[in-house]
């Protein structure tokens, strides 16, 4: 039997894939088998890259009033990627891309994860913004109230007040 991919060499490898319960069988020659192992082959015809491009595809314009032409001219200051580059790759070029094209990525995050609001761990070197800290404290406050830990609740409440005072002064 000839290789199903190149159609030239004798098929020597038998590859069976089960993706989400869907079984497929492929007969490949040694070089094609080596080439495709773990690559997009297993996810084709629905490749991850294409899927992500779609997710990043029709995001909102980066700023109001910007035309399509204006958008493609914007480049990330650190790596030089344009929005088109990112869409083609389905991936960001660097951390600054996220800042430059924040709205697009934020919309993509909502589509992929159903959320664009991180609640997990954060680097201790990055200072938490007062707004975010107040949000966290408010969560802790309601938890303390539910648990009837009133002393703890009072301390948290005072901290929230102090932070809100600071915010107001700015």
């Amino acid at each position, binding site marked *: 039997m000839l290789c199903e991919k190149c159609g030239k060499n004798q098929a020597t490898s038998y*590859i*069976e*894939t*089960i*993706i*989400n*319960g869907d079984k497929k069988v492929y007969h490949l020659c040694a070089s094609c088998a080596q080439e495709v*192992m*773990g690559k997009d082959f*297993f*996810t084709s015809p629905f490749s991850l890259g294409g899927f*992500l491009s779609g*997710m*990043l595809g029709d995001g909102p314009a980066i700023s109001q009033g910007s035309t399509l032409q204006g958008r493609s001219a914007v480049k990330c200051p*650190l*790596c030089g*990627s344009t929005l088109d580059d990112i869409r083609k790759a*389905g*991936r*960001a*070029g*660097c*951390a600054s891309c*996220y*800042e430059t094209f924040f709205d697009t*990525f*934020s919309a*993509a*995050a909502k589509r*992929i*994860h*159903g*959320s*664009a*609001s*991180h*609640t*997990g*761990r*954060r*680097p*201790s*070197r*990055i200072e938490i*913004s007062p707004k*975010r800290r107040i949000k966290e404290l408010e969560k802790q406050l309601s938890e303390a109230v539910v648990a009837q830990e009133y002393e703890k609740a009072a301390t948290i409440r005072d901290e929230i007040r102090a932070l809100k005072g600071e915010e107001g002064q700015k």
Partner: protein
Amino acid sequence: MKKFNNSDIYRDIAVSTRVRLARNLKDYPFPGKASKDQEDAVINEVYTALSSNAKQKKFELTKMEGLSGIDAMSLSEKHMISPEFARAKNRRALITSQDKSAAVMVNEEDHIRLQVTGAGLCTEECLKEAQEIDGAIEKSVDYAFDENLGYLTRCPTNLGTGIRVSVMLHLPALTKSGDIRNVIAALGKVGLAVRGIYGEGSSAKGDLYQISNQLTLGATEEEIASRVNDAAVQIIEREKGLRAAVLQSGDRDVVTDRIWRSVGVLRSARSISSDEAASRVSDLRLAVSAGMIKDITFDAIDEMTSKIEPATIESAAGGEISPSERDKKRAELLRSMTRGISLD
């Protein structure tokens, strides 16, 4: 594989647990977009951070360029690195802890892919250790982070926590009954994925499956780890129930006969393919779990599973060998590793 406390509970079905964190350095373009010098600088920064801040552990740096293709593939078969990382080795480095429980791939898809692996079901322990190492790196490195999007990763599917918690389960009964399809469908609905043993979508060799979270943004690391843990426990209980039912049914003799034949093959074969070996070893695992065989441990079976992979055999043989030669070596390895099992 490292053993954490409690990792013996469910050890007969839960083979291993892995927690992976994706991180990037703020000031460098992501791998692929970075220049050669920048990629080298990333390796340097990460290794220096680990060796100076995580003093309780010893770390070893391996430049991937220095490894042969076979040795790199063997590391991927042992799940120390991804298959993708083994294929393109330029300016990539692997940093491992001395006890091999922690491995940091530098310049994979992200600057840092940090993983901690343990035997059995131990999501909490792996997460804790991964976070300790993450904290040690972060002491002297500026991570790419955004208040709303969390840790910034090259691919938006990893944003937020950048975490992937996965548990490898041995599910022969669910596989043979076909119920695994229902499990896969149910998990998909709660944002969890099921894959075959070799990561991104390969077949379920040896009835081994990997359960992992798909979503990384919106929940905390602890919530994600406990979701995967709870799903794994449910699947384990279902697998146990099915096994018990089979062993009480009329199929008992058929299954018992198959298991003993497999043990016979492992103990006596002179040449065996990778696929046949995987299925025979799966039977052996089942036999130990059912208490039919007591002369071999799960640790030994895990070791066997990784030693009989193609590149690992070649790596041990010191270079490329023909497939038929490999099948012979595999049979040799299996015979010597199952020698202690009595056939009576």
